[in-house]
């Protein structure tokens, strides 16, 4: 059992849970994830370890509510428990040790970028984070990233920071300055666009693939992705790969395998919730 220590609403559909997991807090590395199962009957869900506090024995999980399983998780309150947390899974990020790195985060992918930016900052690398969202309320983890370097924020509607996509901000950075590495995590179209942007400049670009997984140990093969024409397992060989070699079309296609199930489950959930909604989540962190 893993107790929820704190909960914060980062954007309208993104929640941070600080979860008791002392051993994981001790050994996890940037880029690694856990598989979480809320309780009996619940799905196993891969979630990146966004942050860890070894002294407090906690890890942070940042969760976007997209289906029933993630919706169940983000409803957890401090004091509630998650039954299973397994990890740390996946290969740690290959962090450069000198120069200038740009970390590009889109939506909940910004949470995956945070430990990478922290690791790069620890290595003495100059870090520029480029993060974005639809509008101001969708931009997350800005302060946390600012503690590790410069931050450029972008919003589609221009309500905060630069108007436009993160790729436009990245293009300007590439124009202005020698960039030694790019780390990009976000929706598939965003990772594809970033990879295409850096490809002609030969800038090494790492992306993190959110493939569908069950076990996270290589056993099921459900997370297979095509990298440089070869099938690779995102769970054990990834989740991070060279963005210039990833088949993003295949990834996007396979991510749609259970879309009809997800829609049905969401609809069912909404219907069941009529008249049973919880009070709105607090805006600020709730600690106990």
């Amino acid at each position: 059992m893993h107790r929820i220590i704190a909960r914060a609403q980062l954007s309208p559909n993104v929640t941070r849970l600080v979860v008791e997991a002392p051993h994981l807090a001790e050994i996890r590395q940037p880029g690694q994830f856990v598989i979480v199962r809320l309780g009996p009957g619940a799905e196993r869900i891969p979630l990146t370890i966004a942050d860890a506090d070894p002294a407090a024995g906690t890890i942070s999980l940042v969760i976007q509510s997209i289906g029933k399983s993630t919706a169940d998780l983000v409803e957890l309150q401090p004091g509630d428990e998650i039954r299973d947390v397994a990890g740390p899974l996946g290969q740690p990020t290959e962090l450069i040790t000198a120069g200038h790195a740009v970390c590009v985060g889109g939506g909940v992918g910004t949470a995956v970028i945070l430990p990478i930016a922290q690791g790069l900052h620890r290595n003495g690398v100059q870090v520029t984070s480029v993060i974005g969202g639809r509008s101001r309320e969708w931009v997350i983890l800005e302060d946390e990233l600012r503690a590790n370097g410069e931050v450029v924020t972008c919003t589609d509607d221009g309500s905060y920071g630069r108007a436009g996509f993160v790729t436009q901000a990245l293009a300007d950075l590439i124009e202005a300055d020698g960039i030694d590495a790019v780390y990009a995590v976000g929706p598939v179209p965003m990772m594809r666009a970033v990879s295409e942007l850096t490809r002609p400049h030969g800038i090494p670009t790492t992306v993190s693939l959110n493939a569908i997984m069950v076990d996270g140990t290589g056993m099921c093969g459900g997370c297979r992705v095509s990298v440089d024409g070869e099938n690779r397992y995102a769970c054990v060989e990834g989740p991070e790969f060279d963005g210039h070699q990833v088949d993003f079309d295949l990834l996007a296609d396979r991510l749609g395998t259970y879309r009809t199930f997800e829609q049905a489950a969401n609809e069912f959930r909404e219907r069941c919730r009529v008249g049973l909604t919880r009070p709105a989540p607090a805006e600020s962190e709730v600690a106990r």
Partner: protein
Amino acid sequence: MTDRPELTPKERMALDRVAMPEQAAELRAVNFREVNLGLTEQLAFIEAERCLQCPKPYCIDGCPVRVNIPRFIKHLREGDLPGAADSLLDDNALPCITGRVCPQETQCEGLCLRGKKGNPVAIGHLERFVADWAQAHPELLADGAVAPSGRTVAIVGSGPAGLTAAGELAKRGHDVTIFEAFHAAGGVLVYGIPEFRLPKDIVQAEVNRLVEAGVKIEANAIIGKTYTLPELRERFDAVFVAVGAGLPVFMDVAGENLKGVYSANEYLTRVNLMGAWQPESDTPVLHGQRVVVVGGGNVAMDSVRTARRLGAAEAVIVYRRGRDELPARAEEVHHAEQEGVRFEFLLSPIEVVGDEGGWVTGLRCQRMELGEPDEGGRRRPEPVPDSELTIDCDMVVVAIGTRSNPLLTSTAPDLDLNQWGYIVTDEYGMTSMPGVFAGGDIVRGAATVILAMGDGKRSAKAINAYLAGVWPPTDEAGDARAAAEAAAS
């Protein structure tokens, strides 16, 4: 004890093998309840009378864990069920499981003298009967309490090899901790073998019995990630690695990444471990209407029968050899046929065909014919020219085997592996790391539950000798010294 009169040899020989009561095929093809219903007490007593109590029982030689079969059957036919149960449990840590999933026809029953002329004794059915009785009557069994040895053993993996070793080692008073990567114990018994063949509450009851015997289970512990093997070796007096094979093998044909193509591992894990066959499970699984399963082993049979139960109007096995070469248990093939599964023999997939939406629409195959026997003695399938055909389907399950998973072994540089990545052990099951033993599929490659259990039992004996300082083990010396030590402590 019964007061039934002793049968004459002639009367004994006149008894024909009893049939296992089972759910009607048309009924069970639409539910996940167990197919075999188990013998009644009456049927079990009759079947037990058929055993000839051979002075030199061949059946025992056919058993990878060497169950003293005539001994438990003798207790059974005397009506001494507690005696039968104690006898069976003394030899076999998981009899409820082996009584259901062992390929008895190639093991104990294959060597039964009565099989020479007529049908062998239904040893598997009798084992299941006694084991189920034992599970229902724990209070009537001998108390297995034993003095602690003060020694600790880590077991990696809670499948059949790990559970068996845990049971044997706990019996010797060792402090055993099992590390399991999944959230639930049982390994292939819970993620692989379906509910209709091995109910999960039976597995849970066997696991519970071990826990009551003092075995600790740490779930969600992935060795190679959460802890490394060298770390475990430091924390424990001995380690037994039984992680299974664990990586799926795909066909390596075009279209294999289409939506609707599953490895058998993924399909069965979603349905069994994650319970996707039950409405209360949150884990989705595709419900194919026309499902092709590629392969001819027990995993292929489990997959195709699962697909049938999840509503497939057409459920087809595609196997590149012939019926006689099917590696699956005879009973599974028979049951699959009864449930309406279609078998396409001598057919080998060359491409998965899909639509513009990325979904499977068919499996393009090539006819095969059997040529010369290969090194394993099975006739090698060879393609027939210009024989391509496409089977229309909306789901393909690939059940053509597994390979070794490097997750654990890659973090143990001192562990010797063979060219396929399986762990190399000596004749006692010890690896190149002193005090680290290994068994089951991660040593022998994909095999059966009972062979893994045999490895677990043998390794437990070797570990016991190792912990007692008797190395190499000299037969019973290790046991004797360990017993003496346990008594002294």
